[in-house]
């Protein structure tokens, strides 16, 4: 297991370097100059040039690239070109917000979706199964910004059951924060429910048809025992992989939901940084999201390896 993990970590470092390089290249070929973007179109050119010099954006690209790599290594991403404040604290705050929203969405989705998938698989081709599949397909087809808008209008505006803005007041307690995040989390959960439920259903059906499951049943194990000891850990392997990928997306890709609920997570932060050519923030944000993906997939691989020892043995051989 240790060799497995260390090999994965090494691969992650190489991935991180590649990611940093790609982000740097993209950020530096975007049109417009940084000083002009920050100061606006009306600032005198001398002021723009002075700012570019102060920010170092007029240095050779190789020098800036080396600076970027060193910054990643030392976790010093510099200062935001837009706010002049250190990037890391701002990013940490945005990650915190995204983590809360993603966490709540997963907390709602995972138990419901897995339960629904297992239930459907055990009643294959019966009305309950068809209903859950249909529900899953429908909910996955509706974009999260559509469900978000519907929730805002119905639940937030018409019924006034939940706040329409997702940002809670400062120092709000956990129940209050959950109350504020419930609508956007639900909007996301509705979309991912179908995907995870169907993946669970498919995995469970395959395992239920396998020889070892049939053997377990014929040995005299109850259905519940069979499900717990033999079916679940094999059926959920693909589901774990899917959830891991979704975690990365939930952190950085839900700009539409963040906009509807005016929630300043990683999505909005990155979009703002890209629009303003705030290269330090953009670079740091992309790396952080990359790290989240890597950590999530590594964690998923470890969970799968624990669930199915053959996976890590294959690698170690």
């Amino acid at each position: 297991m240790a060799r497995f993990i260390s090999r994965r970590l090494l691969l992650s470092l190489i991935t991180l370097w590649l990611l940093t390089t790609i982000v740097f290249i993209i950020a530096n070929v975007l049109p417009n100059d940084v000083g002009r973007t920050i100061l606006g179109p009306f600032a005198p050119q001398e002021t723009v040039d002075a700012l570019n010099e102060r920010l170092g954006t007029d240095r050779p690209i190789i020098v800036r690239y080396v600076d970027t790599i060193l910054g990643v290594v030392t976790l010093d991403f510099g200062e935001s070109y837009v706010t002049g404040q250190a990037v890391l604290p701002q990013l940490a705050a945005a990650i915190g917000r995204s983590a809360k929203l993603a966490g709540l969405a997963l907390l709602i989705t995972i138990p419901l979706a897995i339960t629904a998938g297992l239930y459907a698989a055990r009643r294959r081709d019966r009305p309950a199964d068809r209903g859950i599949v249909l529900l899953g397909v429908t909910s996955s087809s509706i974009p999260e910004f559509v469900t978000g808008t519907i929730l805002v209008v119905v639940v937030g505006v018409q019924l006034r059951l939940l706040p329409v803005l997702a940002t809670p007041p400062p120092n709000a307690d956990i129940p209050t924060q959950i109350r504020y995040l419930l609508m956007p989390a639900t909007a996301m959960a509705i979309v991912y429910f179908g995907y995870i439920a169907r993946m669970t259903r498919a995995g469970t059906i395959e395992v239920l048809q396998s020889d070892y499951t049939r053997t377990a049943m014929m040995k005299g194990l109850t259905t519940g025992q069979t499900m717990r000891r033999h079916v679940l850990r094999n059926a959920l392997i693909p589901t774990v992989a899917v959830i891991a990928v979704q975690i990365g997306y939930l952190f950085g890709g839900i700009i539409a939901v963040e906009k509807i609920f005016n929630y300043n997570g990683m999505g909005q932060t990155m979009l703002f940084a890209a629009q303003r050519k705030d290269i330090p923030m953009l670079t740091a944000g992309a790396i952080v999201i990359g790290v989240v993906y890597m950590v999530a997939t590594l964690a998923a691989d470890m969970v799968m390896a624990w669930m199915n020892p053959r996976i890590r043995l294959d690698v170690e051989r």
Partner: protein
Amino acid sequence: MDYSELDKVRRRAMPLQLDVVEAFAAGRLSRREFIQRATVLGLSMGSIGMVIAACSSTSSSPSASGAAPSQAASAAASSAPSTAPSAVAGGKIRIAIQRPVSIDPVGMQDLGGYGITAQSFEFLCTLNSAGNDIAPGLALKWTPNADGTVWTFDLRQGVKWHDGSPFTADDVVASMERLVAAGNSGLKGILPPGGAVATDANTVTFTLTGGNGNFPYLVSVFNAQTLITPKAYVAGTTLDKVPAGTGAWKLLTYNQQSGATFERNPDWWGGTTPLDGTEWIFFDTVGPMVTAYQGDQVDAIVQFDVLSGASLFDDPNFSIIATEAALHRQIWMRVDKGQFTDKRVRQALAYTFDRPALIQQLFKGRAQLGNDHVIWQGYPYFDPSVPQRVQDIPKAKQLLSDAGVTNLKATLYAGQLLEIPDLAVLLQSQAAQAGITLTPSVESLDTFYGAQWCPADPKDPPCSGAQELGIVDYGHRATPDVYLNAALKSKGIWNSSQYASAAFDAAFTEFQTAVGVDAQKTASGKIETILNDEVPIGLPYFYNYLAGNSKKFSGVYSSALGQMFFSATSQV
């Protein structure tokens, strides 16, 4: 006409003030124009009232003529809180505002920054409670010399900074020097370095490069960066890094990601504000602002557009603040190269604009006709004699034919802002009626400004890298100097059309140096005529600035530059 009363004012008025008084007495200015001009020129409210009363031929009773003085008086008292009879003291108001990019008082360029900084800092000339003109702020009185080259501002006494230190003339001088050094677009070429001098602790004298009858506007709320900051401030200092101010509200918290909070300044010179504090929530688009109001999470919206805020107009619990303003869009056309070098082609395009339809479709009527020049009808020197251009498709076709142009095709560049993308589409369909094919190309504002409107290269002349056709936005200005100087004067810093006309430049110089009403109107008339004829820019409308608040609150007023004021606000 009560000449004895009029003479009382005449005897003590300065030459510029006298000119305005005579113009009103002779009927060349309306009452509204007179109040506006006289206020700018520093005529006292009492004198204004006396002139109006004296010139009123059928109604000389105090109650009838009291309308103007009370209006003027309310302008003067706009900074003092007034509590409505049914008002409830205390509480907070929650305001939705565009996310500020910067709250550096000198360097900020966006409405979010203007709105936040104006809570703590103040102007020499602030906004009147009607939201449409200036009123005494940190300056109680201002007086020009005979030719408008020197302005003397008497400062309000007893004002303190939030840290308790006294506000003095030195703070004003230091603030002005910072602005001049930063190249403030309103003061550039008007106030030279060292032009502001503290003659004593409560008096500042401004010596200008030339006569300027509009100078108070340039150090007012309408030149958003001219907030008065402490002497010790340095360029680049932001409000959150060094909270300060003389205003009614002290900054408590600021987070660029989420919002800001202010608490009452108990030592404010204007008295005790009815509210305890204000809470500002930052948004990136208008839609969520409207939703937040509908979900009872905000009480006021600093700015919204007609289309995104459509539901607010039908909401009986929402009070709309609609300010007629000089906000507009310019459709620039390169006069030096490309397909629009011939004046007739530019005129042809302008003749395809169906301006009333644009106003109705984009603003539901909440805009005023533009006539392809930048002199807004609300300016006191607007000359209405220039015929209003209307849509005339046959004429457009004829002009194109005369110019020998057939099958005109052009890309219409525009930035993603409010109604501009919709304007581009409407212009496309209107121009098509005359056989002109326009292809809209809409980009994010950041990209558009630097790539299409005014690229940094080539540097000389400025904006010479601009596309041949595009739409750009302009915010409200209390005087048109910035539009004329930057966008239209030869080698102006925002001159995307590369317009270079000796006649226009001469008319602009005449306007700038004109210090009498008649002289300004004459020069303004020339400018309007030249621009309407040569059409370096199409300008179809001036639209209203829209803001609003829940009727649970009263006493909210707003400028057309994103500054909303709550010193007189109370819960109902």
